[in-house]
């Protein structure tokens, strides 16, 4: 089933690339059909997922390379940690295709790269072999780089290159770390390594820990490695921003939970204060910078830095509650920020500016977009009844015990986020309607509605009935928490 999920977007990409004519119509329908098919597979997977069982489910496994000492498996599987992320990826990929409906520059290539991006991220979330994980991690760079640099706006080349260099520099040492782990353990199979983790290597395990951790901290991103993110977001096309904020950042959080905490719990405990401090800084610094933004898209981008700080805070708590909070935050942030970027994209499509100071009273012209933006904003600042609240509350509950100071800073971040979100909504959508925007129209295409509705349903659904998600997440976090418990 997971292999199907991986292959469907690839198949769509190949089909799209082979189209005889470079016309948007065929390319986008192919992309939509294949993204929908992959989404349906992920839904079926999520529904059929056994929420009481521990361990990996839907496992496909065979030796990809088997040559003497050098064995690399193809092994995919999901547990409660990755299952929600796979579902999120399926959903956001459909949304990404929908909001790309207007793309008319080289549509064949565009949709092919978008689907390859989906496949690469899928590979990261479901790979259970370190080398295979690294392969997909690197594979994701090329579609991202081309999507930003070719279909982006503004200083797109600069931003795409910055993204590439940061990620590559971050992940370079990750490979070295993986090789050390694999050689010490005698296998690259994540489950086997986590069951019997190497306790010493040729270098101190702390060095291995940081070599791997750095890649994930850059990806998450955490202060001070976050500067690539606002640039990449600002200059990326809407769909790519949705994918970037929605799922690509989660690769960092996922990697920390799946690999760093599960395999090196002792080092995670040793450095938990450092991580919590970084998290607190990220939340506060991200929020303060967000307050200062005058560009609508940059504002949402910086808010991601702040919100991903919560994920790291939950991780640093290292208890079942905090870790669950981190995992929940990854899912909910994906849907919420995904929706925010979709709405920013729709506003930009109409106004052709992202300067907040130039906008005023847009609610009068586009009530649907305004209301959806408001919903996303409220969810983002953690209003009860929406998914963001559940995740943030869980994170704070888990983190307060071990890291009271960082948690208080982070809670202060929520106050700031209320500030920047509401202020932004007020400046953009309220106030007197101006003559300049009198001609603007509201969302009216079917694909605009489809993109908005699907994300709003996800946000409110999880907010009202969190158990649909929390059951799964807790089943996935329990074994990781047990590993940490055993190590402390």
């Amino acid at each position, binding site marked *: 089933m997971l292999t199907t999920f991986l292959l469907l977007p690839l198949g769509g990409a190949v089909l799209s690339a082979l189209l005889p004519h470079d016309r948007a119509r065929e390319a986008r329908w192919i992309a939509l059909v294949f993204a929908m098919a992959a989404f349906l597979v992920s839904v079926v997977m999520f529904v059929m997922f056994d929420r009481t069982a521990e361990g990996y489910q839907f496992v496909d496994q065979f030796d990809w390379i088997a040559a003497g000492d050098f064995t690399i498996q193809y092994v995919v599987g999901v547990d409660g940690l990755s299952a929600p992320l796979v579902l999120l990826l399926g959903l956001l990929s459909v949304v990404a295709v929908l909001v790309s409906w207007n793309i008319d520059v080289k549509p064949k290539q565009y949709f092919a790269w978008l689907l390859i991006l989906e496949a690469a991220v899928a590979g990261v979330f479901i790979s259970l072999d370190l080398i295979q994980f690294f392969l997909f991690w690197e594979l994701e760079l090329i579609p991202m780089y081309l999507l930003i640099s070719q279909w982006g706006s503004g200083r797109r*080349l600069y931003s795409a290159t910055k993204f*590439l260099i940061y990620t590559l*520099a971050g992940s370079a*040492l990750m490979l070295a770390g993986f090789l050390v782990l694999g*050689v010490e353990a005698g296998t690259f199979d994540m489950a086997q390594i986590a069951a019997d983790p190497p306790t010493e290597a040729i270098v101190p395990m702390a060095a291995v820990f940081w070599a791997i951790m750095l890649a994930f901290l850059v990806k998450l991103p955490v202060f001070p490695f976050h500067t690539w993110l606002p640039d990449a977001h600002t200059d990326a096309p809407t769909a790519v921003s949705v994918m970037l904020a929605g799922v690509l950042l989660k690769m960092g959080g996922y990697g920390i939970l799946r690999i760093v905490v599960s395999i090196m719990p002792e080092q995670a405990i040793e450095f938990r204060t450092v991580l919590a401090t970084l998290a607190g800084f990220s939340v506060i610094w991200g929020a303060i910078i967000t307050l200062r933004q005058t560009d609508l898209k940059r504002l949402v981008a910086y808010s991601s830095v702040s919100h991903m700080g919560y994920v790291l805070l939950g991780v640093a708590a290292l208890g079942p509650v905090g870790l669950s909070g981190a995992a929940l935050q990854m899912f909910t942030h994906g849907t919420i920020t995904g929706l925010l970027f979709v709405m920013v994209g729709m506003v930009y499509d109409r106004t052709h500016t992202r300067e907040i100071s130039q906008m005023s009273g847009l609610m009068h012209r586009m009530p649907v977009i305004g209301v959806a933006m408001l919903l996303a904003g409220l969810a983002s600042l953690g209003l009860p009844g929406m998914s963001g609240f559940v995740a943030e509350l869980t994170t704070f509950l888990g983190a307060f015990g071990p890291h009271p100071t960082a948690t208080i800073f982070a809670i202060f971040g929520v106050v700031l986020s209320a500030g920047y979100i509401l202020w932004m909504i007020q400046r953009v959508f309220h106030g007197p309607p101006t003559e300049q925007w009198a001609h603007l129209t509201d969302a009216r295409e079917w694909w605009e509605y489809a993109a908005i509705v699907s994300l709003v349903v996800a946000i409110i659904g999880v907010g009202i009935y969190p158990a649909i998600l929390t059951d799964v997440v807790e089943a996935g976090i329990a074994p990781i928490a047990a590993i940490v418990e055993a190590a402390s």
Partner: protein
Amino acid sequence: MTLWEHIHYIGPALTLLVGAGAVFSIDLIAGRRAPVWGLTLLVIVVAFGWTTAQALDGTAGQALSGSVVVDRFSIFVTFILLVSVLAVTMAARDWLTRLDGNAEFLAMLLVATGSMALLVQANDLITLFIALETTSIAQFIMAGMARTSRSAEAGLKYLLTGAVAAAVLLYGFAFLFGISGSTELPAIADFVRSSPEGQRLPLLLAFVFIAAGFGYKMALAPFHAWAPDVYEGAPAALASFISVASKAAGFAIALRVFYTGLGGGDTFVAQDWAMVFGGFAAISMLFGNIGALAQTSARRLLGYSSIAQAGNIAIGIAAVAAGSTMGPSGVLFFLGTYAATNLGAFIAVTAVQERLGTDEIADYAGLMKRSPLTAGVLTLCLLSLTGIPPTAGFIAKVYVFNAAVQADQLWLLGLVALAVLNTAISAFYYLRWVRTMWLDEPKDAVSFRPAGPTQAVLLAAMLGVLFFGMAPTWLITAAQRAAASLL
């Protein structure tokens, strides 16, 4: 042994050398209308067939009074040599028809390949040196054959550094002979295995001299100075041949001498020569990558890139000594994937130069629109050189780095850390080039197609890069079996 067996053992090398004579003769007799290009291809195909026969009937053993040896290792490397000379000959068809003296070039190419095939079979220092010098002289001649001032400069530079390298190598051999009392590799190996502690320092000196001599062939820093100039100035066909075949032969013979001839990875001096190569590897990666950053000429950039790649491969040799079982096979596997990758890249660059008359990377702007095949293959090869999946270069790097980590020594781990960071640096110039081809607007919209044989080579390289990237088990197994035959 029968005479036939002696002939069979050196069959591929003999075919190439006799073929070179045939190409010369037919040109003398029939003049300019002689089908020398076709004849050269025929010679290569026969050599291919002979090597395949050796591989299939499991030929192994010494011949010619122990001066040459045939084993899976020599067969593996001979295949790489033949693939490169075939690709180079095919891609050079149009250039050769314009060249005054095409038969001489082709004959020299066959001489160079034939003596390389003999080189990788060499089992004593004298055979080795003679084969190496024959290869070099043939290449010096070819380097100057384009009759441009750049070509002449390249030829002279190659000759002068080559002469110094040969002298240094011979000096090292003299040391080795003086210490061990033999020129035969098995005898030297026996001597080293007897752990003559008192000879440690002279042995170390011999290692450094010999490694320097081979380092010239491999384009390993600090013996790399010729590489960018020769890559840029020599005829393109020769440059692509040097970048793959010469490097493969250099690494092969280094493995043969250091691994077989010095008694394997567990002798009392193994750690010493491993560190020599480790040092060269580190310098090569740094020099190559930093040098490549500033290049605007495509072929010069590939020259620096080949220095950096030599550093990557040398990590495999360094890993040998520390007891990594994957080291030698890592070198061979990397050479195999590198052959497909670098031939593809170099021949694509040659095709662009042939059609557009420029070597400046800035002129690659919009190549994707002008020649999708050339740009596509070049993109894939550059990704492979960077080491990005799903290309062969990714697996090759993971394999070699894994070999070094497996050795479980701190300095090797440091070398790997340096190598992965260098990979990130190299991404900058490789991908900048890719970006130019895909995103920049072309100066004019004239599209072009490479010549027929060149297209075939480019497609083959693309298939190789993808196939070895996605299903590398076969090549890795072959490399492991070849490496196992070394001891």
